[in-house]
């Protein structure tokens, strides 16, 4: 079992390596939906058209000066495990992994930028940054979009802006998603405050992998829903100056309150989690994520000192099913994965 992605699984993506406010904000992602004039949207595109779209985008990326050294993968030809690996690394969506017909992904080696071709729209451009870096992410994706636009004729409407296959994305075609780690708010049963803060700004809160996913290991994604009638800078401002500082403050307050009023409860969560991770012989990814989440909090409240954040961030990624099998170099069934996951975690934690 070997393939183009064997090495990729060995390390964490650059966007997982800490950044501004990284004790709470894991990453900032911005994606733009774009379609090319002259081609139907994908629900009406036949095999030939999909191929032509892919070729047009490839040609544009080779000419675009903001993009170089891209790794190009033909998602249609990848096996299930490689596709799952790309989903776990947030390089492609589940929809793109499970889709059919000619479809590709291009990404740069540090995985900070990825372009999905023939997902729901002809192009889905994404930029991922560690911690809270919304302005930086916007500047980068804006430049990439400009560079592509110089070589592609985007579908653009005087009233509706950038046209998308689904009218929910029309206008700017932008989706900003900020991934947050909120263990203390969950422990203190205050997650409703997060939901309220997001609703006030007409933003959505979702689980780790976006749309339709549950919150695993206390990770939440906040993202915008409105793409028409508000400019990109206005949308970005809602996050940067509005909802994110508010949620970060809630989580910090919850952590401080736990330390001050319920230190035993806090320590119990952290050290039980640590004990489970160090001694379990069978562990599911959900259970492991939950314990890792508590240990991550333990590092940030200065309880856990034997594990560095880098190791922990890598574990979050590598205990997921596709990563585990890639690293092991063989396919494993559910129980075998639980065994492998437990021993992988034990080995990594004892190295520290």
């Amino acid at each position, binding site marked *: 079992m070997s393939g183009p992605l064997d090495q990729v699984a060995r390390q964490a993506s650059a966007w997982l390596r800490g950044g501004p406010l990284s004790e709470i904000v894991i990453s900032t992602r911005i994606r733009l939906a774009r*379609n090319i*004039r002259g081609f*139907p*949207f*994908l*629900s*009406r595109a036949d095999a030939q058209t999909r191929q032509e779209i892919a070729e047009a985008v490839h040609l544009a990326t080779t000419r675009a000066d903001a993009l170089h050294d891209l790794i190009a993968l033909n998602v249609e030809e990848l096996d299930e495990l490689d596709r799952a690996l790309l989903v776990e690394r947030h390089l492609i969506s589940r929809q793109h992994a499970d889709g059919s017909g000619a479809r590709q992904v291009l990404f740069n080696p540090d995985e900070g930028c990825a372009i999905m071709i023939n997902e*729901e729209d002809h192009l889905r451009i994404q930029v991922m940054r560690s911690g809270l870096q919304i302005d930086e992410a916007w500047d980068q994706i*804006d430049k990439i*979009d*400009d560079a592509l*636009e*110089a070589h592609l*004729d*985007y*579908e*653009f*409407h005087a*009233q*509706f*802006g*950038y*046209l998308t*296959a*689904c*009218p*929910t994305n*029309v*206008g*700017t075609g*932008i989706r900003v998603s900020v991934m947050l780690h909120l263990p203390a708010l969950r422990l203190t049963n205050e997650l409703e405050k997060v*939901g309220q803060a997001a609703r006030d700004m*007409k933003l959505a809160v979702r689980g780790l992998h976006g749309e339709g996913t549950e919150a695993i290991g206390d990770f939440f994604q906040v993202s915008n829903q*409105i*793409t*028409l*009638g*508000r*400019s*990109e*800078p*206005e949308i970005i*401002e809602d996050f940067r*100056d509005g909802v994110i500082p508010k949620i970060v403050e809630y989580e910090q307050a919850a952590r401080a309150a736990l330390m001050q009023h319920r230190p035993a409860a806090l320590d119990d969560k952290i050290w039980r989690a640590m004990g489970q991770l160090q001694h379990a012989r069978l562990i*599911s*990814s*959900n*259970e492991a994520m939950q314990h890792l989440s508590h240990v991550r909090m333990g590092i940030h409240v200065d309880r856990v000192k034997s594990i560095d954040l880098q190791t922990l961030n890598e574990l979050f990624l590598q205990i997921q*099913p596709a990563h585990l099998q890639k690293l092991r170099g063989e396919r494993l*069934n*559910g*129980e075998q*994965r*639980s065994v492998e996951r437990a021993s992988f975690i034990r080995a990594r934690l004892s190295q520290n």
Partner: protein
Amino acid sequence: MGLCERCKKAQATFHLTNIDREGDKVERHLCDSCATDEGLLNPSKPTVDLNELLESFVASGQSARSELSNLVCEDCGISYVEFRNQGQLGCGRDYDVFAEPLARLIERTHDGGAAHVGKTPKSLGLARKPHEDLRRLRKQLDDAVAAEDYERAAELRDRIRALETS
């Protein structure tokens, strides 16, 4: 009895315990409507979208309106009803062909947003409106002054001046 874990509004009436591909036990507690949305519950679904039915019902008697659902795009061949059932448009021209019903739908989805504001392709020669940047910079300047970050404030002031005189 708890609330539906998905919408957190309605009473959970649908309870499912399952084993997922990981071999983990997964418990779901949903209300009927969310269970249906997730494809877990299959009520005898009317073949026509309920909204569509209501729209055409309200529109009955107004011939111009009821004809909306018969609209078909000549470019991609999709009808408005097909779009409402699958949620995906067939081509860019649909935004004009279905302009009237679509505009209402879009405004509802985008909290009243009816027209694009923001980035435009440079090839159209409609560069970003400078007044928009100015408004944003002025707000950032206010914030910087409030935060006593005078270095940033000075930088912002210069950028605003440059824009105002250009």
